[in-house]
């Protein structure tokens, strides 16, 4: 086990050694940056999964609206469906454009 493996392609010599203090400091910076970036990616992936789950649920909700009797639908129900469709459109736009910073 070695922190660093270095191959010299000109001579074939392989060096295995521990980090120098400078390399160890760089490694710490790298790991901190990687962890911060991973946290952002995890949040985006969570939002993507939420939007996809909402899209799946919307299929059933829309089917109910499609099968509703127009003669008995109330104005409030129409307004509610318009809001639902607007939310679904926003979700689809976010998925298409990759705007996954939030789910609303």
């Amino acid at each position, binding site marked *: 086990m070695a922190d*660093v493996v*270095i*191959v010299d*392609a000109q001579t074939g010599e392989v060096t295995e050694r521990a980090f120098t203090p400078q390399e160890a400091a760089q490694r710490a910076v*790298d790991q901190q940056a*990687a962890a911060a*970036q991973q946290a952002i990616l995890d949040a985006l992936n969570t939002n993507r999964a939420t939007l996809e789950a909402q899209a799946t649920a919307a299929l059933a909700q829309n089917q109910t609206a499609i099968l509703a009797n127009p003669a008995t639908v109330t104005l409030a129900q129409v307004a509610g469906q318009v809001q639902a469709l607007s939310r679904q459109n926003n979700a689809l736009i976010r998925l298409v454009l990759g705007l996954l910073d939030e789910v609303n």
Partner: protein
Amino acid sequence: VPAYRLSDTYSVPPAGLTFITSTTFSAASSVSVDGCFTASFTNYSILWDSIGSSAGNATQMRMRASSTDDTSANYSAQNVQGSGAGVTAARYTAQTFMYVVVNDTSRDYAQINVYGPNLARPTLARTTSASSLSSGFIQDWVGLHNISTAYDGFTLYPAAGTFTGSLWVYGYRSA
């Protein structure tokens, strides 16, 4: 026919993909190859085989000159990845490295083509990978190092933890 090596004394290396060097490593935090990018070739292929020590990481690459990594924020990368029915893409700019392949506790193979690293112009790298992660995982990358400097080597390292595996470096010789 024995493989050509840079230390061999042929006046003209054979045409085609030419072996330069290889190494194996175990529980390493980084692997560097010095002196592999030379005036002998313009473009190179790195074959990569590794298993990481921890899940959910990436293997990253830095260009190297005179045994020193370039850690400046002049790298960027674009990926496309496929897992199950999902295909996603992402771009990363102003990075201090370029992503090249997933680094997980799965076995990950990659071919990293490196274009013009020893020329005084920006270097591009294109990775196609094959990972056993999640019963088959595709992750392809383009990496850009936007510095017009000639580099003679590279470093590969995991974003976290260590990795164990092998690498082989080849040069593309056109004639």
